[in-house]
């Protein structure tokens, strides 16, 4: 919200020349100490510490340490450097190979060279949806830990529409399947929202419980009603051709229009939050429920709607993966998008633009890590460790301020939502 106000201020400034100078200066000072710098430094620190862990867990460091400590340290640094390089080439691609491919002008080789970059965008897409889901909840003062479960339910309802309904043109089938996915997620968000609004049951506990119910439900469904008849494994039938999200390039690039749909939803969430009365109500309830109550806002309704919308967005993350990438539903098809989304929503300060940037970062990290595991032999799980540290630093800016000796903020704007179970 703070960023938004700043932008508005900035657009008013050009009226008078002198003030412009001043405002720009203030803007940059604020930038350095405030909302933008902290996440960037948090990311850098997290990535550096990840490299340190890689260096410290390299066996050669210890085997050579007795003979030559300098050599050992160099070995460790080298291992860390190699993993960064692998991470980069895995996430974006090998620049030399790209140039060579373009010079050769061979279509398939160009596609192969640029594939890592597009694959990262593919990985970012569910992060955008799930991050928006968590961010929307945050804006309403709700902690939606259940994005993962909502994602599973959205994938289940969506995949059913995807394979069971036949003979529709893609123009109808795709939106229908997306809608079904959103509806499934929304239902899974509605229940904790309703319980929160009507009984006061805390949404954190309820969404955690709903997560596990969703996991068990997906196991049950994939072994029962949603199982592919001809398969021995718990996997759903393939969706109809008409429900697949169109891919923009030929193989091996899996980049599909889901990415643009996600960007569209980011814009939609921004418009909803900051340009509609509903969004205003939602943010007011999140910022100060008491004030909202005195202003006559219907907190019960806002809570229920916010959790349902949040769940719907998470459901879209699930169905997007099904329609765009997997084309079917298998057990444990999401490896923690919904949980990582909590980190990236915080990193993006719960602003749709920030969420998109955070999602891109996480998508690139996740995709790059695959390459890192293959070439540098670093287990992919290091990414989670880095993400946790990035989140820790983003959530506790005081640590970053201490490390980099930044000025403390003028007002206490920290603490997105500090509220107990009772809430």
């Amino acid at each position, binding site marked *: 919200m703070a960023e938004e106000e700043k932008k508005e201020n900035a657009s008013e400034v050009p009226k008078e020349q002198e003030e412009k100078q001043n405002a720009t200066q203030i803007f940059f000072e604020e930038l350095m100490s405030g909302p933008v710098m902290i996440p960037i430094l948090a990311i850098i620190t997290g990535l550096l510490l990840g490299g340190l862990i890689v260096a410290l867990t390299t066996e050669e460091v210890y085997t050579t340490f007795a003979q030559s400590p300098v050599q050992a340290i160099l070995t460790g640094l080298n291992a860390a450097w190699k993993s960064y390089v692998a991470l980069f080439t895995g996430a974006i691609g090998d620049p030399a190979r790209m140039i060579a491919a373009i010079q050769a002008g061979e279509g398939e080789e160009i596609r192969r060279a640029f594939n890592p970059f597009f694959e990262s965008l593919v990985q970012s897409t569910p992060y955008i949806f799930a991050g928006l889901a968590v961010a929307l909840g945050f804006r309403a003062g709700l902690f939606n830990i259940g994005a993962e479960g909502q994602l599973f339910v959205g994938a289940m309802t969506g995949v059913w529409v995807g394979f069971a309904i036949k003979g529709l043109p893609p123009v109808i089938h795709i939106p229908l399947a997306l809608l079904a996915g959103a509806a499934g997620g929304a239902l899974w968000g509605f229940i904790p929202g309703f319980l929160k609004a009507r009984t006061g049951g805390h949404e954190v*506990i309820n969404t955690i*419980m709903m997560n596990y119910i969703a996991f068990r439900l997906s196991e049950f469904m994939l072994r029962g009603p949603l199982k592919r008849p001809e398969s021995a494994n718990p996997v759903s039938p393939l969706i109809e051709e008409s429900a697949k999200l169109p891919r923009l390039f030929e193989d091996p690039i899996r980049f599909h229009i889901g990415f643009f749909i996600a960007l569209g939803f980011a814009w939609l969430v921004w418009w909803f939050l900051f340009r509609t009365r509903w969004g205003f109500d939602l943010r007011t309830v999140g910022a100060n429920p008491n004030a909202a109550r005195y202003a006559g806002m219907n907190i019960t309704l806002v809570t229920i709607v916010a959790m349902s919308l949040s769940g719907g967005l998470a459901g879209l993350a699930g169905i997007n993966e099904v329609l765009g990438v997997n084309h079917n539903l298998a057990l444990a098809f999401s490896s*923690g998008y919904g949980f990582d989304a909590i*980190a990236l929503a915080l990193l993006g300060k719960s602003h749709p633009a920030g969420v998109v940037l955070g999602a891109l970062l996480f998508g690139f990290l996740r995709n790059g890590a695959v390459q890192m595991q293959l070439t540098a032999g670093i287990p992919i799980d290091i990414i989670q*460790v880095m993400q*946790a540290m990035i989140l820790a630093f983003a959530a506790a800016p005081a640590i970053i301020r201490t490390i980099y000796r930044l000025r403390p903020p003028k007002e206490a704007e920290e603490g997105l939502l500090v509220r107990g179970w009772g809430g």
Partner: protein
Amino acid sequence: MATQAATLSRRVEYISPRRQRVMGFVFLALAAGIWLFFIRTVDAGVSTTFRLTPGGSDIQLADWVFATAPALNILAIISAVLGGYQLARGFGRNTNLVLGLVSFLFMFGFLAWAAADGSLNIAGLLRTTLQKAVPITFGAMSGILSERAGVVNIAIEGMMLTGAMIGALMGSVGRLYFGDTAGLWIGLGSAVIFGGLLALIHGVLSIKYKTDQIISGTVINIFATGMTSFISAKFLQKYQELNSPGIFQSIEFPLLSKIPFIGPVFFDNNVFIFAMFLFLILLHIGLFFTRWGLRLRSVGEHPKAADTLGINVFRTRYMAVTLSGMMAGFGGAYFTLGSVGRFDEVMTAGRGFIGLAAMIFGNWSPFGSFGASLLFGFADSLQSKLAILSVNIPSEILLMAPYIATMVVLAGVIGRGHMPAADGQPYEKE
């Protein structure tokens, strides 16, 4: 001092007329359930056999055989009568106790029905229930310690996972250098220490830097999942000798283990189960009958008042959170050192979160949470038995039950829980 604490722990209980009616209908519904689902599908003349001797025990006890249909009828009638009494007069403050009784009757009916025309080893079922309940109980006790002091700890899962991994790693290292038994204790000790260290991070983030406690807990969960999987993939899978700590063997209590039925179930287990009972008793006494517990709870209920009276709120919270992490580390070690003997990635599989649920279910009290853990452990152990009995209930549905039950409790249908008043709120000294 002790009596004062005991008075404080006694809550004023008021049963609203609405709740009385709701509970009456719940009892009647369970009675109807026994009739509808069980009695109607049982053929007359069929009998149920409950075996009372767990496998491998040398004290033989005769099987308990009874006719299924009449027994189920009796159970249904008792439940219905209790429901009728609840609707007409109400059990007042004993309502929850009666709810437990009726639920027990329903479960008993379910088992009798499931084992109709066959046999079920009740002793074995109880034994696995108890074992499945161990990590859940440790998780719940971990939650109680920290939440009673006003710090929400959803990182129990991560702490348990760390405890499991460190237990396996350090246990194996200890075994290589100091032999089998010493290795196990080294592993257990390290698991406890690392659980505490992780909790200390949670404490620093949430108490010192006043990060939202749920965010801080999420950080630790993500970190622990990533770190344990990273170390497992990088070292434990490569060097198998770093992942074979062995397990604590069962200890047979002299005399007590010879008691028929009870002996083999309770007194022939490994150190984790005895430690669990010990900690339950210690925690109960500590929380409700000592100065330490009174202070801890006052910090969780009203930190400002506690501060005014000279209690160091920050120090108390740090202490509680660290103890909470140590408890979770102990419980996590059960997975590797008490049960499997090897670390697998994400092997806790949400037990920490179920522990959290058990804590809420048990109303933030040690023995209440233990009861809830037993219930959840029962659901867990039952699903493996049902497959053998060829009962046509999907095990996934059964496994959902604890989560649904927790949500029902949280919604206040069975009575609102008593959560520490300052739970989740960072304390700001003025």
